[in-house]
């Protein structure tokens, strides 16, 4: 970043393609052995390689929260991390929340509160609410709003999403 020999786009010796390597990911309790190029984001590994398409790609730049999932119980943006850097961690996506046919209480609450319209942001919102509970830092309604601000909803379902989060905190429904 601050090196005099690497201004801007200077491209120095590139490795020859393809440079894929074994990557082990533990997703929703199942261990997967993959061959991935190092530049594969966790989001792309899930969607393109494991075909777990519940986690959505909105911006691919950390700005929308559609790709939110849980790593060791905490929320992250899966578009801004490399799959190869998330090995041996417990990754939970929206696909891992229900128990058989029984929805996770936060999933059910999204239906009960009519907290979505097109549904594109919803998997990220659901994981974010569960992360919010797990992280244990929200004490007030203002805290909830602030700590949920990383999940953008183009349909504007915010009022009902906040209701879900509030209820989840009251019931303490994490993972």
């Amino acid at each position, binding site marked *: 970043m601050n090196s005099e020999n690497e*201004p*801007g*786009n200077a491209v120095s010796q590139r490795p020859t393609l393809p440079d894929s390597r074994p990557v082990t990911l533990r997703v929703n309790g199942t261990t997967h052995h993959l061959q991935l190029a190092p530049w594969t984001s966790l989001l792309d590994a899930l969607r393109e390689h494991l075909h777990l398409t519940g986690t959505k790609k909105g911006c691919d730049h950390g700005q929308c929260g559609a790709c939110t999932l849980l790593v060791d119980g905490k929320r*992250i*943006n899966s578009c801004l991390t*490399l799959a190869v850097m998330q090995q041996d961690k417990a990754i939970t996506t929206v696909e891992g929340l229900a128990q058989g046919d029984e929805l996770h209480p936060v999933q059910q609450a999204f239906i009960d509160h009519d907290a979505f319209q097109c549904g594109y942001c919803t998997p990220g919102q659901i994981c974010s609410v569960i992360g919010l509970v797990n992280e244990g830092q929200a004490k007030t309604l203002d805290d909830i709003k602030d700590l949920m601000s*990383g999940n953008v909803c183009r349909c504007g379902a915010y009022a009902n999403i906040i209701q879900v989060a509030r209820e989840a905190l009251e019931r303490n429904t994490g993972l």
Partner: protein
Amino acid sequence: MRPFSYTQSPDVTTAVQEVSAQGAKFIAGGTNLLDLMKIDVMSPSHLVDITQLALNTIEETPDGGLRLGALAKNADTAYHELVQTRYPLLAHAILAGATAQLRNMATDGGNLLQRTRCYYFYDTHTPCNKREPGSGCSAIKGYNRDLAILGTSEHCIATHPSDMCVALAALEATVHVKSSQGERAIPFAEFHRLPGDTPHLDTNLHPTEIITAIELPAKGFAQHYAYLKLRDRASYAFALVSVAAALELEGDTVKEARIALGGVAHKPWRVPEAEALLQGKPASKENFRAVAEAYLAGAKGYGDNTFKIELAKRAIVRALEQAISMEGKS
């Protein structure tokens, strides 16, 4: 993203060796580097993953300060009990930045080295001296609402976007760094640079050096502080202007004042001579305004961002008033 090779370092010695290769860079949280690599603003040919290094602890120092490991997460730092109780200014500044998701990923070391949010820096189709030295600055005569009003040069008017760093400047932290040549400690005021005629250099860290820790001195100003961040929406936006204010009071008299500004310069902005104007003076609005005037004395607007000059003055006054009243803080 352009292809790159990747290694994970087991220890600091290996990490600094690996990063000395041509085109190599460290990756920590990845939240700034990967963002910029996706749009080809940065294009390292090798990434050295430092997330497994034992640099993520937060520990008390023998002289009563606190040592934040470079790999401590922004969220873990802000919610750490000793940070909350002894350095609440830092906790507030960190929590004013980014989102819960990003703070769970971002590291303290990476936060210091995040790059500017100047729109032209991000747009590889426009000239930018920071991205492509010698190509020109698109912002000076272009759209510059978010850009700097202090310490600018004819080559670059970018701002440093960090909130955390504004608090670290006010608290006079020290940055500990290491390379294969040895270790050194950089006072926070000397860590970031002004653009001058080398706007491609953000900091005085050498590319082969790793940040190992950020050290906070014992004095945390936990009694009277405020982090005021003014932005276009209430959460999840970079600062137009931010102020870290810390006061030590004796009755109504100011014993010591620290003020650092964010969003206005290429580095967190401090003017110790202006802070000194408050020393031994009553903590009054008139005196605060006088300090604010002194802080912005050399400010220069570039059109779209000229409003920031008055905004910054008023923000300084308000932050100092909040530091006195401590309203809304427990």
